[in-house]
């Protein structure tokens, strides 16, 4: 073994390292959070840059920009969807409108997943015991981990800021450095808050899955409150009870309001402090919320690996379906309002955002794109769950019994596919319900078709994920979320039309028709489904011939 330069060896003395035991947990946490922070910081930066540059290429004249501003600036329904849209006649104003809500949600998801993984997840795997057994206490170790998570958020911000500042130097874009830094700070603010929220739920919940689900519920409520606040129904005050609302109130680029950093900072500090405090009040491995260690056994859905997968994942899957259902219901509810107040040039704008047709249908076309992204995350979650069975050591129990790899993976694939199909049907049905309340005149079959239309892009993500699982299982998370992130990025940029079709074709969402604005392209859907099934088959074939691999 090569000598570690950090190790000091003296005769007859214990081996010492130069690393301070005080910073071990922090540096470990910072490394893990920093790696994913760098990736997402890059994606954030590219998304911001491409939005800004695309705007300058499409809206070249003051007249076209004024038309855009007139169309969107006072549309409450569109504000509910994307946030307020002031100063759409400027590059900066458009960039905030186009990208900020997506980045805020992505940042929150990154924050809660990273935080619960590095806190409760480490406890689940028993590694936290080893760390806390060192020269530290439960509180100090949690504090260090949160500091490390904060370092990851700084990396995320630095990546996004670097690209945004660089983009701002363009004559056509002209972002001021301070404005660009403040904008990216705002975009990362939700990530920071949800790191802290995840830290608290990691103390409250008994498992990582529960901790992440709790934090996701907070995100869902926060999004719903912000949506209502921005919907123009006289409840704008709700913006101040939503973490996403606080970030919105920062109003970067358009009317900066740094005072809104106060609730963000206070919330983060209080939550981080609460997490540290709670960590000291409970045993390692236990949770603040009572966890039932004994339960009456229920032997249903334990007939085999596929049934067990359904049973073990049902709460997570139902959570996703509910999130899609709520989003779909809200979208359906506001679509008519959004569609009837837009006119003229707005159709052109919506077309560039990826939707055509009459107002209501065009708005729903964009909404279904968002639902497609959510469904894509469901597909990604299914693939990482498959991999987790292997890396967590539970898959071995099936494969040393009379279960072939083919049948195990086939069963898991069918479960994942069913989850996606149901997600599509839920999206279509609940959108119809929301739209029907508003007498939008859209039929259930039309919106069910739009819901089913969400499934093929997710099948591609699922298939590519299974292929990665079969060939390089340790790369699954990167491949799946890389493809998803890339597809989102391309569709954000490509919807505006400034990208080569070769690049556009690499996005699974670009291939999806903007139903119900236009009828689903069943031919293209069949091709995507075929790609998804074929890649999954290759993955299953490769899985049959490889070694089982741990983490």
């Amino acid at each position, binding site marked *: 073994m090569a000598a570690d330069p950090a190790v000091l060896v003296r005769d007859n003395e214990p081996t010492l390292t130069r690393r301070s035991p005080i910073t071990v947990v922090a540096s470990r946490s910072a490394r893990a959070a920093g790696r994913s922070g760098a990736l997402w910081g890059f994606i954030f930066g590219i998304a911001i840059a491409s939005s800004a540059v695309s705007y300058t290429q499409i809206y070249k004249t003051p007249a076209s920009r004024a038309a855009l501003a007139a169309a969107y600036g006072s549309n409450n329904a569109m504000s509910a969807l994307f946030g307020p849209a002031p100063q759409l006649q400027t590059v900066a104003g458009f960039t905030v409108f186009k990208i900020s809500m997506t980045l805020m949600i992505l940042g929150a998801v990154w924050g809660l997943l990273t935080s619960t993984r590095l806190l409760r997840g480490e406890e*689940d795997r028993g590694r936290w015991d080893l760390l806390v057994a060192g020269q530290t206490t439960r509180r100090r170790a949690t504090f260090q981990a949160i500091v490390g998570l904060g370092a990851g958020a700084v990396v995320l911000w630095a990546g996004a800021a670097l690209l945004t500042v660089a983009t701002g130097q363009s004559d056509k874009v002209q972002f001021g450095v301070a404005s660009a830094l403040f904008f990216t700070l705002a975009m990362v603010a939700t990530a920071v808050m949800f790191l802290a929220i995840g830290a608290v739920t990691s103390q409250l919940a008994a498992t990582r899955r529960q901790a992440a689900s709790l934090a996701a519920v907070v995100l869902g409520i926060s999004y719903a409150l912000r949506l209502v606040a921005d919907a123009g129904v006289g409840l704008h005050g709700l913006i101040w009870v939503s973490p996403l609302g606080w970030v919105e109130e920062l109003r970067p680029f358009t009317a900066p309001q740094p005072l809104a950093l106060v609730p963000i900072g206070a919330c983060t500090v209080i939550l981080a402090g609460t997490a540290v405090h709670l960590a000291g009040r409970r045993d390692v491995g236990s949770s603040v919320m009572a966890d039932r260690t*004994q*339960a*009456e056994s229920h032997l249903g859905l*334990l007939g085999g690996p596929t049934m067990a997968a359904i049973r*073990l994942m049902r709460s997570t899957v139902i959570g996703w379906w509910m999130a899609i259902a709520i989003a779909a219901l809200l979208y359906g509810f506001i679509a008519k309002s959004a569609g009837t107040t837009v006119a003229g040039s707005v159709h052109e704008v919506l077309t560039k955002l990826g939707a055509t047709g009459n107002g209501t249908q065009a708005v729903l076309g964009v909404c279904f794109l968002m639902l497609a992204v959510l469904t894509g995350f469901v597909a990604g979650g299914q693939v990482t769950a498959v991999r987790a069975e292997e890396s967590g050591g*539970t898959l071995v129990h099936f494969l040393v*019994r009379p279960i072939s790899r083919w049948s195990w993976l086939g069963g898991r694939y069918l479960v994942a596919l069913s989850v996606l199909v149901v997600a599509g049907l839920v999206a279509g049905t609940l959108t119809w319900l929301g739209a029907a309340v508003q007498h939008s005149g859209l039929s259930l079959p039309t919106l069910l078709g739009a819901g089913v239309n969400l499934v093929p892009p997710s099948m591609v993500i699922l298939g590519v994920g299974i292929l990665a699982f079969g060939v390089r299982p340790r790369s699954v998370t990167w491949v799946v979320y890389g493809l998803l992130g890339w597809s989102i990025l391309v569709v954000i940029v490509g919807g505006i039309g400034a990208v080569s079709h070769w690049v556009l074709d690499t996005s699974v969402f670009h291939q999806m028709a903007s139903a119900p604005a236009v009828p689903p392209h069943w031919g293209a859907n069949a091709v995507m489904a075929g790609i998804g099934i074929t890649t999954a088959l290759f993955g299953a074939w490769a899985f049959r011939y490889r070694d*089982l691999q741990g983490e």
Partner: protein
Amino acid sequence: MSDRAIRTEQLTKRYGDVVALDHLDLEVTPGEVVGFLGPNGAGKTTTIRLLLGLSRPTEGRAEIFGLDCQKQPAQVHRRLAYVAGEADLWPSLTGEETLSLLGRVSGRVDEHYRDDLLNRFDLDPTKKVRAYSRGNRQKVILIAALMVRPDLLVLDEPTSGLDPLMEQAFRACIGEARDRGQTVFLSSHIMSEVEALCDRVGILRNGALVEMGTLAEMRHLSALTVEARFDGAVPDLSNVPGVSDVLIDGQNLQCQVRGSVEPLVSALAASRVTGLLSREPSLEELFLAQYGEGEHGR
């Protein structure tokens, strides 16, 4: 039907340049209890993973009851049960739910025996797995393997985390399995366990099987320990063939003897011996003799 429970031919596994298992030829007869010894990294778990079809061999092949481990894994697995040293289970299921799931997947369960095992291993099946200690999780997978009464038990460090009482219960279960004609392949670090349970023992070193046989056959690996008490002068044994490591403490002598004991007996006959004790090497001594003190696995 094959006359071998396990047969490997030139079974080899390489990870890049590292040879984890080197042309292993191994045969286990049905009904045998075979121990598999070796330090960490010697290739024990690699062998088991290849037998179970969890890893692919670089060269060679393995069969269980005449079935190819790679080509017919599901058929192979109908005949065996496996216990790993690390019990990674589903945290949200109770012990009973876990046993139900694993039993249904196995396709057969002796329910009466399962209940008996729960009692003998003193396991509370109503607790969730995440509330179990490491030892209790290990009990779950032991019971899950034993309750299906397989033709072959493949055990990889099966008693990790078990207390001495449960270790005794485990030994009793393996004894019963042997009496029922089940074959047992046991990889373990606990020499007393292997010594007590196994008909034959294999010793693995750097991925290669360096010894395989019964304990009696392996006695040649280590010296016989002889202790003698004298009434009078202690004889000089320095030139006696086969004698080494002579220790003299007053009227007492201890030495090691390799090969025939006849020269030593002749040398002692000339003195007044008041007490004589000889002891065959334990499995631990055989193992250490094979590896040499201070040598570690890769």
